């Protein structure tokens, strides 16, 4: 009796580890250079106060990600495939064009993150950026999906660096815990902008495409879906936990000594210096890891989504000549994304802000398509949303659209107003 139960638990754990990967990786990559910057900024400027947004962020994230992995498991098709089949070529083309632009800006931001984090280790950017770009390109073109996924899962572990570095500088845990459950609203435009920014950076359009494609690629079936759902939820929670420690670290290191704005994520690492070498080193290493991770995944995910949606040959197991558009797109995103960071006088900050605006334009589209698709009986069968799921899904969509549009508006005003 007990033996049988033990065996059942063991197989369940085994299945969990068999499906682990897509949800976890997606959630982790979400904490990329842009995300870390936003969380650092939140802590630096407002201390522990913004922590309460993390719980609702986790909920929003779980709801959107769950729909994606469910669609992937049930239909066996990627999101761009489904959009193409159900909404036609023109809509797909529009979505893909926006996706390429947004993701290009994101790639740039992450190469900038690589440059500034390695500068903290005294590596000049004209060395670090080309080397990392080449490494990223080779990793995917020369590796197999299996080995690449293992490397990615390894990279997920490095995010623990943030937890350790926050522990090292001894923040005020009582206040952190209190602020996490106590919503505080102030009519300070900067505060509101930060709150919106935190939500906005945590749900990005590329994630929906990447996660669903990864679930399909992994061959997760309806039967294994229960485990896959747990994986998605665990991933989202882990992502929010990391964000929590970033905010807390910056609250302790910057806000308690004097609240101020930071210019980039590397500034936050600098601020940890007085608290000891290790906290500083870990924070910088974490930033490098996150940037590198996102810079590896974004170009690949973009090339996959675009080629699948528009019907070009895709796949890293094809030769260059068989899938030219796939490889060109992938290569150009990396080369241009890295090249721009090296260009002196390039308006990088403005470009990154622009990416957030584009994000805001694209995300509502993607979310609406997703909820429509997940409710199609002929695609999803018995796996369509239940009524309560639809209620939550549409509410989240409306909230997300409102917030991202507000964020896009604010950034556009700041940058050009």
């Amino acid at each position: 009796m007990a033996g049988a139960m033990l065996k059942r638990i063991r197989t369940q754990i085994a299945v969990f580890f068999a499906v682990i990967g897509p949800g976890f990786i997606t959630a982790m990559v979400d904490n990329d250079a842009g995300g870390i910057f936003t969380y650092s900024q939140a802590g630096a400027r407002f201390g522990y106060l913004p922590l309460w947004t993390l719980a609702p962020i986790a909920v929003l994230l779980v709801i959107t990600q769950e729909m994606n992995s469910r669609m992937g498991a049930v239909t066996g098709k990627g999101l761009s495939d489904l959009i193409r089949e159900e909404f036609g070529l023109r809509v797909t083309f529009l979505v893909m064009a926006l996706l390429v632009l947004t993701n290009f800006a994101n790639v740039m931001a992450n190469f900038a993150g690589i440059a500034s984090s390695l500068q903290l280790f005294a590596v000049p950017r004209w060395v670090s950026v080309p080397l990392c770009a080449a490494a990223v390109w080779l990793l995917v073109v020369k590796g197999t999906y299996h080995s690449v996924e293992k490397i990615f899962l390894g990279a997920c572990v490095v995010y623990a660096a943030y937890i350790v570095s926050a522990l090292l500088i001894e923040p005020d845990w009582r206040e952190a815990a209190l602020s996490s459950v106590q919503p505080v609203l102030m009519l300070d435009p900067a505060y509101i902008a930060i709150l919106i920014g935190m939500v906005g950076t945590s749900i990005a359009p590329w994630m929906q495409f990447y996660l669903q494609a990864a679930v399909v690629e992994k061959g997760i079936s309806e039967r294994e879906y229960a485990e896959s759902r747990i994986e998605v939820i665990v991933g989202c929670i882990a992502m929010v936990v990391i964000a929590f420690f970033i905010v807390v670290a910056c609250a302790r290191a910057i806000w308690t000594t004097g609240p101020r704005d930071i210019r980039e994520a590397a500034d936050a690492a600098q601020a940890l210096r007085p608290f000891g070498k290790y906290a500083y080193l870990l924070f910088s290493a974490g930033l490098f890891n996150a940037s590198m991770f996102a810079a590896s995944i974004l170009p690949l995910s973009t090339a996959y989504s675009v080629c699948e949606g528009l019907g070009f040959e895709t796949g890293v197991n094809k030769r260059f000549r068989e899938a030219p558009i796939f490889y060109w797109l992938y290569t150009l995103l990396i080369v241009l994304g890295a090249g721009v960071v090296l260009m002196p006088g390039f308006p990088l900050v403005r470009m990154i802000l622009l990416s957030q605006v584009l994000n805001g334009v694209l995300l509502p589209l993607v979310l609406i398509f997703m909820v429509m698709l997940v409710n199609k009986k002929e695609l999803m069968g018995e796996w369509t949303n239940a009524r309560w799921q639809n209620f939550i899904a549409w509410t989240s969509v409306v909230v997300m659209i409102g917030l991202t549009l507000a964020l896009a508006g604010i950034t556009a005003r700041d940058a050009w107003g």
Partner: protein
Amino acid sequence: MAELLYFTELVGLGVHDLKGRRIGRLADAALVPLIDSGRIDRYLVGGGWAWLTVRHEQVRSISLDGIHLRDEHLTPYHDDEYMLRIARDLLDQQIIDVDGRKVVRVNDVTFEIHRENGCEVLRVLEVDVGIRSIFRRLSQGVLPRRWIRRLQRPVAPNSIRWEHCNIVEPDPRRRLRLNISYRMLEEMHPADLADIVEELAPEERGAIFETIDSEAAADALSEVDPKMQASILESLETGKAAEIVEEMAPDEAADALAELEEATSEEILEEMDVEPKAEVRELLEFEQDTAGSLMNTEYIALHENATVADAMDALKGNQDLLENLSTLFLIDQDGVLKGAVPLGRLFAVPAAARLRELAAGTLLHVPAGEKQNRVVETFDKYNLLNLPVTDEEGRLAGVITADDIISVLRQR
């Protein structure tokens, strides 16, 4: 040469009655494959409240300037299940390019305009993929049709002839009504078919394996990635799954079944014939990653006293093994392995010669429990094409061939 017309051009063309008045615009066109697999049978015209159906013999002429009718008795549009509608069922969907051996997505369709019995009909010539057809789709309705034709000229066309297109339809009843068969797929090389199947969604995969004959299905399934093999077998009816597994080489069959849940693989085994079932069951007993799980039980073994003439008879009696056979094995009356004879040597000696004299100098073999890694090393060290596997008493249990080793190496 007949004139060409793209589907993107056809949609939106004005439809005119006998007096030249426009009654509506073309919304979609449909084939009825049971009648004719390539001719557009009906045109669906939008205008006013409901769609109208125009039968192909009611059309006098079709050109970029519009469609002119020669008969005005039009009926309201009814959906019927024998119709394959181009915009609804073909555009933007995935089809199999049998000639190019890949899965493609349809951007546009090219028709030829033919004259038949005083009316002009459209026949599907090609399905268009690639950049040129994407350009047509994007500019359709935005630019005049003739401009689009001119502007697209520098881009090379990328099309698949209609005869080489295979539509994938998961619903078996609809497949019958639309006259879709997968016979063309059976002719393909199993490895190519496996690649195609891997690109499709699970439902469509199941549809193909359900329909093609068990032998072709078994060959293709052997080439598919192990995890996907399991999900395909699971999605099939047990009877069909058993038929396919029976046709597979026993070692491949055992590998595929080993990936399944025990209850499912047991059900499939129950449905199988006695002989293949016993062989597969035996192989399933071996632990994964051992020589026993790699080996195949299809081989030719003769008594150690046999002659070349006996060997020739044995070969004639095992026609189905000949394609990949390179070695004969010698055993004694208890089945203990005594020697291995390279096939080529049979041809250099008289028919009365004893096989024992032709056997290779050193007899290499591994026990069934040997670790997979050691087996691979042995293959590499001695440059082997195959290696016999023996049980505890030294009896011949099976043979590992080089292609099994390549699969092992590929999966690392």
